[in-house]
């Protein structure tokens, strides 16, 4: 038994690095569409294995700056990838999608057709938004509420999700009466948990341009490069559309915003 233990330890420490494996850091609004994108990518690129981590874009930005071993970074905004590129930590980003913001509730009795003013309803005790200090959807939510002059009035009702997926979870569990979340998280829900939603008009907030970049770590990996190319393909675009994303503006190779 004692003889075995060093081997056991080695076995547990050893991380078999498969040659075709790439690691992707993906923004939380991609939670439901990534499995389909990855499956399509792996089908088109035999031998490739995609490992995805989900989280807030700001968190991944800090982690990649500190040397986190992600090969590809799919942000929910375009600023973070561009900042990484500026510091030489990533290649020039591409814009792969544009996120859409929706007002979402599980409360069948809440009338949403007049938009954000529905949040004035006293029955809504808590309104979930992503933290506007570091989450792209939080910034969009704040802009939209300010656009309707509701930000200050509704401030006492806000609860802040750490990322957009947690914000959606606050709404879905009914702990928050309504929330401003990513359409991609709402359209992926099974019917019995879908509630109902209202899309915030695009002119109420700055566009949620989402950019992706190959990181310094991923530069040497052909599959990581292929993954970024794949994001521009019709197959990937179609999956993203299905999950409620808009096509990015025609030019995919964007400059610094």
């Amino acid at each position: 038994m004692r003889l075995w233990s060093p081997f056991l330890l080695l076995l547990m420490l050893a991380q078999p690095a498969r040659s075709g494996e790439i690691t992707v850091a993906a923004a939380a609004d991609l939670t439901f569409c990534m499995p389909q994108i990855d499956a399509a990518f792996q089908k088109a690129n035999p031998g490739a294995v995609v490992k995805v981590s989900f989280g807030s874009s700001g968190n991944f930005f800090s982690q990649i700056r500190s040397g986190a071993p992600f090969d590809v970074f799919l942000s929910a905004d375009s600023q973070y990838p561009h900042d990484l590129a500026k510091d030489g930590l990533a290649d020039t980003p591409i814009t792969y999608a544009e996120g859409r913001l929706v007002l979402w509730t599980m409360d069948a009795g809440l009338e949403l057709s007049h938009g954000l003013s529905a949040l004035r309803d006293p029955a809504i005790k808590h309104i979930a938004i992503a933290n506007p200090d570091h989450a792209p959807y939080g910034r969009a939510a704040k802009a939209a509420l300010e656009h309707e002059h509701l930000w200050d009035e509704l401030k006492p009702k806000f609860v802040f999700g750490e990322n957009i997926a947690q914000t959606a979870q606050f709404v879905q569990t009914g702990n928050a009466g309504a929330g401003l979340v990513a359409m991609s998280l709402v359209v992926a829900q099974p019917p019995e948990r879908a509630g109902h939603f209202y899309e915030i008009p695009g002119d109420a907030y700055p566009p949620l341009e989402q950019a992706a970049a190959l990181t310094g770590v991923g530069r040497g990996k052909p599959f990581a490069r292929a993954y970024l190319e794949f994001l521009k393909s019709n197959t990937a675009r179609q999956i993203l559309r299905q999950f409620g994303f808009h096509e990015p503006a025609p030019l995919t190779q964007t400059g610094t915003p």
Partner: protein
Amino acid sequence: MTFPPDFWQDLWLTVRLAFISTLLLLVIGIPVAQWLVRGKGRIPLIAEAMLTLPIVLPPTVIGFYLLAIFAPHTLPGALWARVFGQPLAFSFPGLVVGSVIYSLPFAIQPFRAGLAGVSRELIDVARISGASPLDTFWHVTLPLARNGIAAGAVLSFAHTLGEFGVVLMLGGSIPGKTKVVSITLYDEVQKMNYSSAHACSAILLVLAFILIFTVTLLQRRCPAE
């Protein structure tokens, strides 16, 4: 060193949460610990294992169950909202419940050790001299177990200061209501305000050291002198 805006409000909220949770843990924990010490049979054993669970349980498990069980459309959630006038999630009382569960073993284990160290003979003497069981417990057992009880209280307080996962899941980061210092620190790191993150961390580090030093002192003094 720059502090984040409203840092002192967040720190005060954290201290209030730790203080109230510790008081509740004293009230709940001492009788339970006494029962664990004196109880016979298998039930106290099972109970002790269950009460010790939060040591190894990820805080996210506690946060998730509380969110699910006390969601407004469930029966416990509706009862809670009726009593407290607001749902459990995103409220200070909700954080208190989370903290009490999360710190339970950190109170009960030292309480139990302190109470178990009280000599059986002293208790018998008090009982033979005519003191009621409650009197004996209050005037003999408790004073003799005071180091263990104090250690448990300080440890619970310290543990609640360091709470993060439960609050992250339940809190919603509302300034003055649920945004405790560990969350402030997390938000500042995400905003890349590293200098205010350093300030938060330094304060938490110093507080934690003082508290743990106190626990060490209390435990050095033999529980059954």
